[in-house]
């Protein structure tokens, strides 16, 4: 279970998160919506352990462990996964090699045996087929020259391989065409399970038709200003954020 309490964070003296409270239980899918610049990506980076932010107040625990004490790689080993809004290109690092290194690093950290190359290849082939990630893409350097949609599919492939217990998807739907949206959503839905929690950040109700959330939050100016069921997303789609963001201004 993820518990975020009264989380305040700033970067270079600018307060970005201003007291976030959020509890995500195993098996739940929470959607976070909210205007541009409200702090959604910041929250996801802080969860994943990016070091650029100063946490001035509050706490993050996952399964009872203080996440703020862990480095990014330790958090990944603890089960966290962030699908980046803007997956970064890493020249010189072959996608396949990277996937194997990441998987085996996590296995080693958990005291599990490393996967042999044939077993690993089999696993990647299986998972990449579902996500329509081609062998040619896997041979290329990580994300280099991938189209926007290919990058997002590659993120979900990583998620499927690493099998995290807390998935944070930051605008995974942006830049996807209609077919890719379906492929990616199916990939995500396959991972839904009673043990796995998800936080889905999006601007569009459309994604939530595919990945149906249990809870929807509205984040505005670094605070959760409204929480509701999946119908909240429909209401936002119709009326915009005006009802929720006005009072803060």
């Amino acid at each position, binding site marked *: 279970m993820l518990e975020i309490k009264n989380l305040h964070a700033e970067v270079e003296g600018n307060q970005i998160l201003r007291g976030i409270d959020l509890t995500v239980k195993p098996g739940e899918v929470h959607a976070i919506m909210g205007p541009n610049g409200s702090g959604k990506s910041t929250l996801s980076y802080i969860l*994943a*352990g*990016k*070091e650029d932010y100063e946490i001035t107040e509050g706490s993050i625990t996952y399964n009872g462990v203080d996440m703020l004490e862990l*480095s*990014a*790689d330790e*958090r*990944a*080993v603890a089960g966290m*996964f*962030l699908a*980046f809004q803007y*997956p*970064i290109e*890493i*020249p*010189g*690092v072959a996608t396949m090699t*990277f996937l194997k*290194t*990441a998987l085996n*690093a*996590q296995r080693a*950290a958990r005291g599990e045996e490393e996967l042999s190359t044939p077993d690993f290849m089999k696993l990647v082939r299986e998972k990449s087929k579902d996500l329509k990630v081609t062998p040619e893409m896997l041979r290329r*350097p990580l994300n280099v020259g991938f189209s926007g949609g290919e990058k997002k599919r590659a993120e979900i492939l*990583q998620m499927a391989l*690493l099998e995290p217990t807390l998935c944070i998807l930051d605008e995974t739907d942006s830049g996807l065409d209609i077919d890719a949206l379906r492929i990616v959503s199916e990939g995500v839905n396959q991972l839904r399970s009673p043990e796995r929690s998800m936080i889905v950040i999006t601007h569009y109700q459309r994604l939530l038709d595919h990945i149906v959330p249990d809870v929807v939050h509205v984040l505005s100016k670094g605070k959760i200003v409204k929480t509701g069921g999946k119908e909240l997303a429909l209401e936002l789609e119709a009326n915009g954020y005006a009802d929720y963001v006005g009072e803060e201004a």
Partner: protein
Amino acid sequence: MTAQNQRVLSAAETGFVEAFAATHGKQSDGLSEARRAAMARFEAAGLPHRRIEEYHYTDLKAKLRSAIALSARAEVAAPGALGEVETQGRLVFVNGRFDAALSNVEALAGKISVSAWAEKAEAPAHDTAAFPRADALVDLNTAFVQGGATITVAGGEKLEKAVEIVHVAKGEGASFSRIDLVVEAGADVLVLESYQGDSGAYLRNTLTTLEVGDNAKLTWVKLQEEAESATHLASASANLGKGAELSQFLFDAGSGLSRSQFAVAFNGEGSNAALRGVSLLKGDSHADITLSVDHKVPECDSREYFKAIVDDKARSVFQGQILVKPDAQKTDGQMMVQSLLLSESAEVNVKPELEIFADDVQCAHGSTTGEIDEDLLFYLRARGIPEKEARKILILAFLGEVIDELDDARIGPLLTSRISNWLHV
């Protein structure tokens, strides 16, 4: 006495002058004349210092403090294989002298002729214009050279496997050796050269001359893996004929102080030279790579591509000069130097110099110096890869680009594994 001679000699300079008087002052060999002339030049000019332009960042007068005796003959065990490279024939030099017992030149018979020597008395009369400019390191080499070899690859011979040249140092002392390599017209050869030594504070001075004949191809890979406390001073020059191809790779990872200077001259049209390398520096090591490319004739391409990893208080110096003479139309000269600083006290000096006297040419140089990209590091760590491992991956990726560009399957794996080994220390 002339004013020039009243210059105060440093301890190191005096050491060389006295060592010369004691060894070569009276005796004679095939090189006596050249030796004496070189020593006279050295005595007049001394060790290069920072007011000499080519040595601005590498002040040898300040860095070489005390006198260092000449190395003695030594016996060593046969050096191990250099790595996963197919080889044929090997020349081994120990403390500057050719060691026939450890070498295997018979394997080269018929295709490559080798004439090697290890004693003053055997010293042949060398071409003394081995380097295009007056240089104290070349003069010291000529004055003291203890052993050498002339290696000639017969015209048209295309050899897939590498010829190994291994230079071993044992104990302290200064060693001087010289290799003259002639690749005759139409021949194709890979030379894999290694410099290695035990832990002594020795000094090595080498001189290499390369003649690449018309339509010949030379791939010259040099592994500079001297002991940490060693000083490595290497000078090389190359002359390229018509349609010749030179591909050079420098793996620059040893010695506390090194200078690798290489001068390439295009003498025949349509030839090309690619000089590449990686420097891996840590501790307080200082590595200087100084290149000059002389485009004398039209339609030649030169490419320089070097990368450096600089950790701790180490310092990397790169100087690259591209000279395009008036006749050298349609020259393509490209130079790129990229450095990755792994510590705040690491230092990099890059000095590109383009001198272009022809109008229809394409020349460019670029350099970048930076640190490991924190965003890339975060991405890898967010996938569960520990920081140390993630850094290694990024460093390998950074250096790998030069090996990829070299695109030579015979030596790529060797270089990659050398880099991985270095990173794991």
